[in-house]
Structure formats: C-alpha cells, structure tokens
C-alpha cells in the first residue's frame, strides 16, 4: 500500500467516553483488497476503534480518512455516498437487528433508507439472501424465529447491500458454530475478491486470525486506562 489512494485510515485517533480515554493516538490503515487483523486485550479499545472507523463515534482528536480525504462529522452528518462505503458486522446479531423486522425487511432497510425503487429492492434482497445462504422460507421470519447463525447471515447481507468498499467485522463470528463461521468467512472473502474490498477483522481467536488476516496489527494499550480484564 503506497500513498493514500484506496484506503480507509485512522490517523492519530484519540477517543474515549467522557474522561476515560480508550484510544490514544492510534494509527490504522486498511487498504482495498486486504484483510487486516486487529488484536488487543479485552477492553483494549478494539470496538471503539471499529466505531470510529465506521463513523459511529467521534474521536476526541485525530481523524478518519478515506482515500486520503478526511471525513467530517459522524453518523447522519456524513454524506450518504461516503458513509455507505463503510459497513460493519457486529458480534451479536440479536443486538444489531430490529426484532420487529422480517429478515427480508432487515436486508432491505439500507436500500429503503436510500429510496431505491421497490423492484430493485426485491431483486437485491433475493440476490443477497442467495449470496449469504439464506433460504426463501427464512426471509419471512423475524429474528426470534431464527438461529444466531441465520440472523448473522442476514446482518451480513444487510452490510453488503450498498456494496461497501470497507467491511469492518467486530468479532462477527465469535458466537457462531464452526460451520457457520467458515461459511460467513467464505462469503466475505468472495465479496472481497470481486469488489476489492478492504476488511478489518477483529477477533481473539488466534486460529481464525492466522487463517484469515493478511497482516495483523496489535493495538497497544493506551496507558491511560487502568488495565483491567
């Protein structure tokens, strides 16, 4: 990776919650097409860094850049065209999915939010469901009626609706069984290959990290937080 083209980067990011500083001047770059593994102790700020990169958490200092251009603001203050370039897959699909929506509506949500026409939405939902291995009978169900693995597949489909350039996976397969984990990883790797997407892989499973990440970054302890497990 040379230059700043084709990369999502955190530059000298300091972030935390109130007075508690979790990240202290952290740099991280994710290039298009590469899988970067992120490793840190529990409570070491991995999830906070993911939230900063996903433009969900405003850093106290430092900035997030895409292709070298700084992103201003967080959440809805970021232009749609910019924030849809980044997608996140969280650890717990239960916490990340609206329990009132069917899986089909869950996957369609980002498309509805950007006012795509209905026939395009139907087509995309069917394609995405197929991609992640959700059968048609599951699409009509709501989260309580499916397993964690099935729900995480739906969340993955939702994350891919806008064809993001960067996908951030925060312990996304930690609660899945081995087979579902391997399947989700295969779907992500395929997508990455066809779309040349950059992937951030946060996991504390060394075997998974070894197998999946192209390179591994250790997040140093910020030194400000009392180190407690």
């Amino acid at each position: 990776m040379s230059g700043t083209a084709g990369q999502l980067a955190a530059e000298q990011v300091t972030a935390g919650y109130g007075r508690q500083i979790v990240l202290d001047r952290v740099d991280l770059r994710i290039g298009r097409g590469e899988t970067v593994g992120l490793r840190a102790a529990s409570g070491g700020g991995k999830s906070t860094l993911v939230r900063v990169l996903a433009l969900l958490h405003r850093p106290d200092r430092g900035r997030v850049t895409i292709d070298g251009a700084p992103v201003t603001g967080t959440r809805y203050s970021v232009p749609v065209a910019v924030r849809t370039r980044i997608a996140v897959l969280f650890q717990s699909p239960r916490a990340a999915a609206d329990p009132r929506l069917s899986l089909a509506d869950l996957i369609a949500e980002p498309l509805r939010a950007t006012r795509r026409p209905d026939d395009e939405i139907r087509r995309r939902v069917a394609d995405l469901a197929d991609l992640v291995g959700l059968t048609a009978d599951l699409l009509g169900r709501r989260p309580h009626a499916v397993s964690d693995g099935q729900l995480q597949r739906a969340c993955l489909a939702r994350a891919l609706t806008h064809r993001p350039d960067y996908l951030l996976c925060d312990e996304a397969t930690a609660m899945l069984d081995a087979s579902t984990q391997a399947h989700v990883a295969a779907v992500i790797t395929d997508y990455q290959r066809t779309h040349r997407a950059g992937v951030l892989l946060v996991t504390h499973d060394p075997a998974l990290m070894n197998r999946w990440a192209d390179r591994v970054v250790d997040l140093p302890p910020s030194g400000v937080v009392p180190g407690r497990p």
Partner: protein
Amino acid sequence: MKTDQSVTAERPAGIASLVDPQRPGGPGPVLDVQGLGVRFRLRDATVHAVTDLTLGVHPGELLAVVGESGCGKSVLAHALLGLLPRNATVTGQARLHQLDDGPVDLVTCGERVLAGRVRGRLAGLVPQSPATALNPVRTGRRLIEETLRAHRHTRAEAVGAAERVAAEVGLDVADLDRYPHELSGGMAQRLVTALALAPDPVLLIADEPTSGLDRPLVDHTLDLLRRRCDGGKSVVLITHDLAAAERVADTVAVMYASRVVEHRPARRFFTAPAHPYGAALLDALPDRAFRPVPGHPPMLTALPPGCAFGTRCPYATDVCERQPRLAAYDAGAVACHHPIGAGVVS
C-alpha cells in the same frame, strides 16, 4: 454396517461405559441418560428438539456436547434440570446418582425434588445468556451470598465464599459490588459461572460458558472446569467452540438434528472422527480446511425419517433412508450406516 432393527426394541445397554474403556468396573455414571426425547408442541407443528438420546457422564469426566446452533444442545441442558417451558414433553430417563438415598430420575421426579435437592447442589447450570439470568437489582456479591444461603450455608460462610468463587472465575473482587447492568458481557459471564460453582455441585452443566470472553479468559474458564473434573466432579460442557472442547474434554458427544450421532473419547474424535458430520464439522475449523459443512441442517419441525445428515453427506447411499442407530464403534459409539474408517480400523 448395522442390521435393521424394529421400532423401539433393545437399547444398546451401557453405551456410556463403552466410551470409557479405561475404567472397567469403576464407579458407575453420575448421570445416566437413556432414550431421552424432548418435543415442543407449537400451534401448527411439533419441534423434535431431542430424540432418543443416550449418554453417560462418569465421576471426573468432562463431556463436551458439540454441534451446529439449533441442534438441540441447550434444550438437553434445560430438560435435565426441568427448566423447559410448559409446551414441552419429555420422555425417556435421566438418572442422577450419588444421592444419599439412591438415584433420582430427573424426568419424573417432579419440581419439588428438582428445586429442593437437585438444582444448584447436585446439578448446577451455567446458563447461556448471562444478561438475562441475573437479577438486575442485586449486586454480584448479593447474588452469590443469596445462592449460598439458599443452599443452607451460614451467613459467615457465604460472605467469605463470594470472594473466593469470584477469584476462582477471574472476576475482580471490586466488580462484586456492581449491578449486572454495570458489568461487561464477559464479566457477567464469569458471574453466572461463579453462581453455579458456589454450591459446589456434583455435576455442572455449562451452556456456552465461554461466550463473550477473550482467549485468556476462555482458557481460564476451561481450565477451571478441567480442574473440577480432576477433583472428581463431573462437567457437561455444551459448546459450539470445538477448540474449547479439544482443550479440556475427556469425551465428546456430537449432536446433529436432535440426536447424538457420535460419542467418543475426545482424542479419538479430534484425530479420527467417525461420523461424516463430525468430520465435516472439524473441517470447518480455521486451522483445518476452513470449509463449511455443505447445505443446511434440517428444520427440527420436519426431520426426515432416515439419517438427517443424508442430504449433506458425501457417503450417503440408499440405506441411509433408514434411521441409523447409535452403536458401539471404536472406543465409543456412532450412529451412521457408513462410519469413516470402518473396515480400516481393526
């Protein structure tokens, strides 16, 4: 390999003892499950969550129950402790031994016996989602003390014990005075483990006790369970984490579509799985082939009459349209018409 068998017929007696040949004539199992079945009646369907399940757990044994999500692992735990909802029907037998006055059948003994003598003291449970298992208006310390008081410990004993079990599970003593909502997922997980360990049960059923923990804490918790078994207690570890099972288990029971399809000494299972499903599951591990099991597991409301793995199995033949029985196989038992290695292993 097995000839055909009619309806219920004879049950292969003592499959459990076949799994552990190192202990011939040793103490009998603490838990002896024979032909356990659990069904849930829904308005328009019946869920077959556990079917004809036979298992034994001996003193000092750590049994890992593994399988894909939704295969019936957690239902098994809840069935053994009488924690199923009212629309569940339980059949078969699950005898818990080591009671002063003979064994108790967990299926038929009733709520009074379960509540008064079994739960907590004889058979403890580490429930799957700690966030929903903790009383939100009690601190961790109060919860542990309350548990011990309920098990007839004196107040003085309870006070010291809270800090002892907290230390045992790797929970900071300072965190004992927090309320559940102030704990991270990993801390809550350690607290429910501490609650189950506090009364020192003969049998501990741990349902995904390592979820939400990072690797050092996973290993800490697993080693804690291992030490319990080395001290003569028994543990049933229900987990989707095969690496965890490999680290500590003596025996492994692989569940698929409500049945135990393979039950063997852990070392044998991890080096030479006998059931094609067991082999496919191991192949999915990131340090092995990292290849998902092809296809999807069947729905528990619509199980096929034959082998439920048949449609996903590379070895399936016509005979697989008949349900294979769990039969003795290479130091354990397997339910398959074409077990891997048959005819190779003498």
